């Protein structure tokens, strides 16, 4: 490619990142250390660690991240090992079904979990019916503090990331590595611990990191559970009195520092990249045919996990179709009224349109930026292109909440970027926020495509008289279309589900995206939760279509999208 164009792309992307990634973070950090009269102070940050409420929030956030990560791995690891060892009936389908929870909005699911495990919920009603529980003193499963419910919901949402990473890592292990151990007398669990685990550790770590960062700063789920003693929710509530209150800023900074620290610690402990030996793999991984018992175990495990993960959302569907559902296993009577209401309600119809608009524009931005960045990184010898690559991956390591907060701060009235809020319309800043957060997936997808497509194909076109950019358009882009579509679909569905940016940046009802509309409906009285559920079901229907499309196009390679 034309060197000038490459440099232009490099500089353009760098400016984009400087403005919409570095600057918002910097702005937040600055606010946390600057007093009203312009002096520099550490008092706010120190105050965070002296205030027991904030300290408890941080500890709970850490638990939320840690337990979610552990539980996700506990769920995903056995499944990935089964699917990479045995050829059981329906393996392909179950392999895709297991990924579905990733695109089910977790904070919608949280509504379902409350319905299932709440004090007047399904499980208790069931136990009371069986006579195993005293109807007068129902047990509170979600417990004091609701951390258990939040972790469960998060893990049931995020385990597909671990599953994809572990599967991809397992698929990359030369089967001869395991056979060599077997051949030298190392078998079964011992082999798993001595050979397989160390070799898939980097892949496992990559998945665990994303899950940890994601759940450490998760906002939507604890919000629905009314679990306010975590940092993310404290920050969210702090926004209301943002002017003059430095503590939300200080909290965001502390959150960011902890995230980076945990990431580096994890990378140092587990993430050391293992270079493969130079020999080429002798055989592809071949699956063993499962015996009837093994068939039953595999299918059972997959169906159990998928079922469990979908259960909250199934609860949501029931909730959306129920008139009254309280102290009973199934709703007392059903109605489709809420779905109609959901479409008729001015708030909801608007929000669906808004979300589609924001998400599509963000996806378009992502695809264009993704192609440009991936091209520069893979196809040019520009010095510093690795830096560009690393930069494009950074949004994965920074909590969405932190960025959302930064955007809010930098577009406040009187700030340098307040023109980004067009009148009161947050469309520009929301599209930018959505795009920045999802850019890593699209860059990874496009880069994988460029790496798999030999540059000689383009050179052949140029050699026959096709100018460079036209060669890119006519030869390479069609060849990597599948990657781009899959990356784009993923970016789109995550944008549709976005919580932090949506909740924080959309302030007027007519500009609410779906997620904020659901949040608003949940907190309203009457049939609000039912209509919220109905809206959630509509959103899930949209997303199911997109992600199944992505899965079909990319197949196994989807794991590559979730690496830091």
């Amino acid at each position, binding site marked *: 490619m034309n060197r000038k164009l490459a440099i232009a792309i490099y500089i353009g992307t760098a400016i984009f990142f400087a403005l919409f990634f570095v600057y918002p973070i910097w702005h937040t950090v600055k606010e946390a250390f600057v007093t009203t009269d312009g002096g520099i102070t550490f008092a706010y940050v120190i105050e965070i660690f002296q205030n027991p409420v904030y300290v408890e929030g941080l500890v709970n956030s850490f638990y939320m991240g840690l337990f979610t990560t552990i539980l996700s791995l506990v769920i995903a690891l056995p499944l990935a090992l089964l699917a990479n060892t045995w050829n059981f009936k329906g393996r392909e389908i179950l392999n895709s079904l297991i990924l579905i929870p990733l695109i089910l909005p977790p904070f919608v699911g949280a509504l379902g979990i409350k319905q299932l495990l709440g004090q007047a919920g399904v499980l208790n009603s069931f136990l009371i019916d069986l006579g195993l529980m005293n109807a007068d003193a129902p047990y509170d499963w979600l417990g004091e503090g609701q951390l258990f419910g939040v972790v469960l919901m998060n893990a049931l949402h995020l385990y597909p990331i671990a599953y994809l990473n572990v599967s991809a890592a397992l698929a990359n292990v030369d089967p*001869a590595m395991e056979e060599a151990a077997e051949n030298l*007398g190392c078998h079964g669990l011992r082999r798993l611990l001595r050979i397989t685990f160390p070799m898939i550790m980097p892949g496992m770590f990559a998945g665990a990191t994303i899950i940890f960062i994601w759940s450490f700063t998760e906002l939507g789920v604890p919000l629905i559970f009314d679990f306010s003693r975590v940092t993310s929710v404290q920050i969210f509530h702090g926004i209301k009195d943002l002017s003059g209150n430095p503590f939300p800023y200080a909290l965001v900074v502390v959150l960011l520092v902890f995230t980076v620290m945990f990431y580096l610690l994890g990378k140092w402990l587990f993430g050391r990249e293992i270079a493969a030996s130079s020999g080429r793999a002798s055989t592809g991984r071949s699956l063993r045919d499962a015996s009837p018992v093994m068939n039953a175990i595999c299918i059972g495990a997959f169906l159990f996990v998928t079922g469990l993960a979908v259960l909250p959302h199934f609860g949501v569907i029931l909730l959306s179709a129920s008139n009254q559902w309280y102290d009973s296993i199934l709703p007392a009577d059903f109605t489709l009224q809420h779905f109609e209401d959901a479409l008729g309600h001015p708030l909801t119809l608007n929000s669906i349109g808004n979300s589609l608009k924001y998400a599509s524009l963000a996806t378009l931005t992502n695809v264009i930026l993704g192609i440009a960045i991936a091209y520069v990184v893979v196809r040019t010898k520009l010095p510093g292109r690795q830096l560009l690559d690393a930069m494009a991956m950074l949004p994965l390591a920074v909590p969405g909440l932190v960025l959302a907060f930064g955007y809010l701060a930098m577009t406040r009235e009187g700030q340098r970027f307040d023109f980004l809020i067009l009148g009161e319309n947050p469309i520009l800043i929301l599209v930018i926020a959505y795009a920045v957060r999802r850019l890593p997936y699209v860059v990874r997808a496009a880069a994988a495509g460029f790496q798999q497509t030999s540059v000689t194909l383009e050179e052949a076109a140029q050699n026959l008289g096709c100018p460079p950019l036209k060669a890119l358009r006519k030869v390479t882009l069609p060849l990597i279309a599948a990657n781009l579509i899959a990356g784009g679909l993923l970016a789109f569905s995550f944008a549709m589900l976005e919580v932090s940016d949506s909740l924080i940046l959309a302030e007027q009802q007519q500009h609410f995206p779906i997620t904020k509309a659901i949040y608003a409906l949940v907190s309203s009285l009457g049939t609000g939760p039912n209509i919220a559920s109905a809206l959630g079901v509509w959103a899930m229907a949209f997303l199911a279509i997109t992600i199944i499309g992505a899965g079909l196009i990319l197949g196994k390679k989807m794991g590559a999208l979730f690496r830091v």
Partner: protein
Amino acid sequence: MVSIQIRGLEKRFGDVVALNQLDLDIQSGELFFLLGPSGCGKTTLLRSIAGFHLPDSGTIEFDQEDVTRIPPHLRETAMMFQSYALWPHLNVYRNVAFGLEERKVSKAETKERVEEALAMVKMEGLGNRKINQLSGGQQQRVALARALVVRPRCLMLDEPLSNLDAKLRIEMRSEIRRICKESGLTAIYVTHDQKEALSIADRLAILDGGNIAQVGTPEDVYRRPRSALVAGFIGETNLIKGEVAFISGANVYVKTAIGDLAGRPSDPDYPLEPGTPVTLSIRPECLSIETTPPARNEIAGHLTESIYLGEVAQYSLQAPGREEPFHISELNPRRIIRDTKQKLYASSKPEDVMILPFS
């Protein structure tokens, strides 16, 4: 060191028969080669002996002990993989020590034996290296040391040299033979490189479509192939179809499209009588090129190609009545003939014309 007896071994993958009722005996302390085109079943056979494939039927015995159903980790074989399969998370020492750790060998003895094994493959002092710091040749040596150090009942080598460059390959194959012989190992070596097999094998088996086409010493298989397939796979040859005309003493005269040729049956027990259809095999180096008609086994024609390689001259001679030209190699050529117009003759001694079953 074990001897290995294989009886009626059969393995299918779906509809594909990888091993077809195969019988084979490998002697104790022998360096035995499995050779054949890709897809012939040689790797399947090796992996079955190591226990990675469970055969559909048949038995594998180590010293008359049936091991057919014993899982790989209890068979005490040691395999050297084509990709080496060195574990990147362990250093050289830990890779080599792995099998001894599994066998619960004491720390002190492990250290001693690992060092001995590394010395045997000329890698002494490199135990602390990481796998990705090694060259291809060094990785190959470590893989060999890892297999040798456990003193296996049988050493298995799966195309161990295929990832090396030509010069290193020649050097390493002599090394492998030296080490096997020094340790008195029974070793099974899979390759598709006939030079490797001819140069260092005690005996070799040619596999074809899951069957054993021929077993024998390298000289045996090269000089007395039992089928056109073996003759064509080991070395180069010219094949001529024909039928037996008459038998006179040791010589059998065969009527072919390019005239009568006198030859000898490759297998002395091969029943021949006038009218039997046969295939003749004449190696290029068994043919000599002449400008005047020879006394016997005359093949007349015109040159289509002459290649001068210094120590050898290669000719392609087109004989009428035949589509393929004859390939002729002349060692120590005093002159090279390039004239394509001139009528030339090739001839061969009857004992160099092998009579093989018709195919």
